[in-house]
């Protein structure tokens, strides 16, 4: 979970006993988590598998927007648009289409290729927006990206030959190395019928891990440092040789590709794409995820994604036993509404009381290595924080001319 750089590791002393013990503990934790993740499809029913898969898709999308908002300080309300691009592009590339009265286009490409092309298409869409994404910053960009939501909805409803319009489109299942990610043909493993959800579960795990590893590589490497500096001190970044506008646009494209992949995953799980789903609320969900989880870090994005995706399902499942929450359709606070209110409030609460989000809280609970990070961690509590307002003993620009 931790996002400590090489420097951080060096500081703790590579050979120290405490360091080794901690590393062992961390490996053990990872191994345990991996075991649990692998075991899940054998024990949980479809409802939870689907919830888990939604969370995985959300995690990929959240990692993407965290690169943009958390690490580079650029707000985007348009994430849902790129999810839609990914989802619909996959369907368009993979589906052979049909002629007739309601002609629907499609290329019928091999599905793995369609996945790759869908992600690239999302990237291209992000690139088309780069003249704005590169020049606007912070909350300004947030309002500008609202346009993508409305434009996206308009296209999804109107470009019927591609999107299927109001009714959306069915999603062709993915076929990889002869394995079809669908309920047929039947497959039974260890006495558990392995349907679409079970099969997708492992694919989802792999994709989340891959997405997380890639993002972490970016963040720890040369681009990540440039992004953080743009967030912390734009002018210094430029003077140090970082082409600021190009980087802003680049991160926007990368973030769009993450959203595209999340969209593909969503489509595969949902098996149908509908326009309404990709509205503004979805974008807000993603911003809520990264704030609740912890801005600027991969682990935070994953935590937040799980929180925001699982909460409504938990409430739905246990609405009978929870006070104040009514069964869906009975007129009281529905689980979905309760969940929205809860995580809306969580966003506010995190900023007010929990700098660093859930990840920061975890760090603090674990003590030791997180202790310092909790104060001034890598996953900063203040993603857009300006340069220290007054680092010098005479902080007003005394020589300002």
């Amino acid at each position, binding site marked *: 979970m931790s996002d400590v750089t090489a420097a951080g590791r060096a500081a703790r002393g590579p050979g120290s006993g405490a360091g080794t013990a901690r590393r062992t503990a961390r490996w053990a934790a990872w191994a345990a988590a991996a075991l649990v993740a692998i075991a899940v499809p054998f024990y949980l029913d479809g409802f939870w598998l689907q919830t888990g898969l939604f969370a995985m898709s959300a995690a990929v999308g959240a990692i993407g927007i965290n690169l943009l908002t958390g690490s580079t300080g650029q707000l985007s309300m348009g994430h849902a648009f790129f999810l839609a691009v990914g989802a619909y592009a996959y369907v368009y590339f993979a589906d052979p289409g049909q002629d007739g009265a309601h002609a629907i286009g499609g290329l019928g490409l091999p599905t793995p290729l369609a996945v790759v092309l869908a992600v690239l298409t999302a990237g291209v869409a992000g690139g088309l927006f780069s003249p*704005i994404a590169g020049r606007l910053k912070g909350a300004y960009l947030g309002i*500008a990206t609202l346009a993508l939501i409305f434009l996206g909805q308009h296209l999804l409803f109107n470009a019927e030959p591609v999107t299927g319009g109001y009714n959306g489109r069915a999603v062709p299942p993915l076929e990889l190395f002869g394995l079809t990610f669908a309920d047929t043909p039947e497959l039974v493993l260890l006495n558990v019928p392995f349907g679409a959800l079970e099969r997708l579960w492992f694919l989802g795990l792999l994709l989340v891990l891959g997405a997380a590893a890639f993002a972490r590589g970016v963040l720890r490497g040369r681009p990540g440092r440039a992004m953080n500096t743009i967030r912390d001190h734009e002018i210094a970044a430029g003077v140090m040789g970082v082409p600021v506008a190009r980087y802003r646009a680049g991160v926007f494209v990368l973030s769009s590709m993450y959203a595209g992949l999340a969209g593909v995953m969503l489509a595969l799980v949902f098996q149908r794409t509908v326009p309404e789903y990709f509205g503004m609320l979805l974008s807000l969900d993603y911003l809520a995820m990264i704030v609740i989880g912890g801005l600027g870090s991969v682990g935070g994005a994953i935590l937040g994604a799980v929180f925001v995706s699982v909460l409504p399902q938990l409430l739905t499942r246990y609405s009978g036993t929870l006070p104040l929450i009514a069964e869906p359709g009975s007129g009281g606070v529905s689980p979905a509404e309760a969940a929205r209110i809860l995580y809306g409030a969580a966003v506010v609460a995190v900023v*007010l009381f929990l700098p660093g989000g859930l990840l920061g809280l975890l760090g603090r609970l674990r003590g030791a290595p997180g202790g310092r990070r909790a104060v001034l961690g890598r996953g900063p509590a203040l993603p857009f924080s300006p340069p220290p307002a007054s680092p010098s003993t005479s902080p007003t620009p005394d020589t300002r001319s």
Partner: protein
Amino acid sequence: MITFLELLVNGLSMGSVYALIALGFVIIFKATEVVNFAHASLLLAGGYVVARLHPFTGFWLALLIGVAFAGLLAALVEFLIIRRANVGSHSVLAIVTIGVDIVITTELTRQMGTEILSLGDPWGDSVVHIGGVTVAEVRIVALGTAAALITLFLLAFRYTGWGVAMRATAEDAETAALMGIRLGRVSLSAWAVAGALAAVAALFLCVFPTPGLDRGTSFAAIKAFPAAILGGLDSTTGALAGGLIVGVTEALMTGYQNQLAFLGRGIGDVAPFLVMLVILLLRPAGLFGTRETARV
């Protein structure tokens, strides 16, 4: 030509309503540097109170209470949340307002369900004829009210002590504090005024030809965001110009959508955002916005 004039008047009327919303949005930004994404939810709250109260209190009292309620709610958001979020960065506060927006909007839409609530306005669907041009009476009222409120506001902004304090704070908060201006009060009053303006705008978003207040109203309110940013987030003039541009564009694109069929149905709703994108491409700080000069 007649159609064009009708569309233009309707567009200006809607535009003046957007301007009211955008003005509040800009006031909050100027006074506290917060981009308030919860603005649409404040508007919804004001409208909702009017809709629920008017059967009991009559329209005018309900409107008064609704406006006061929205102002109070906005002030409460400032006092309980914005002021306490000591994050040192105003952009984080933008995300906080998103959280606030999620909570308020979710609760209100839950209360409304699928109903379409009437606000009980006295104008109904009566129309007036000026020359060959036919316009709904309420659209004229909207234009007049918005113009009056905006004038009143600009006069207050210019001539009262409150206005001086607001402008001083917007320019340089620290120096304003050095002059003895209480920043807390300035910020509280800015939020309250913005909330109240939004509630008035809510009224005119929900009257003829719109069927009434429903879940979609907050989306209509969101069109004021491009109005604010294309004018320039820190400019009151910009908010007015932006509102009118958005209103007129929307009305014309909707009115001529048959001729614009190749752009798809409902292009009117998207048009304001497209205009915003074009303007931002040409002027990243908006039409009247000031570019900050970097200080190192």
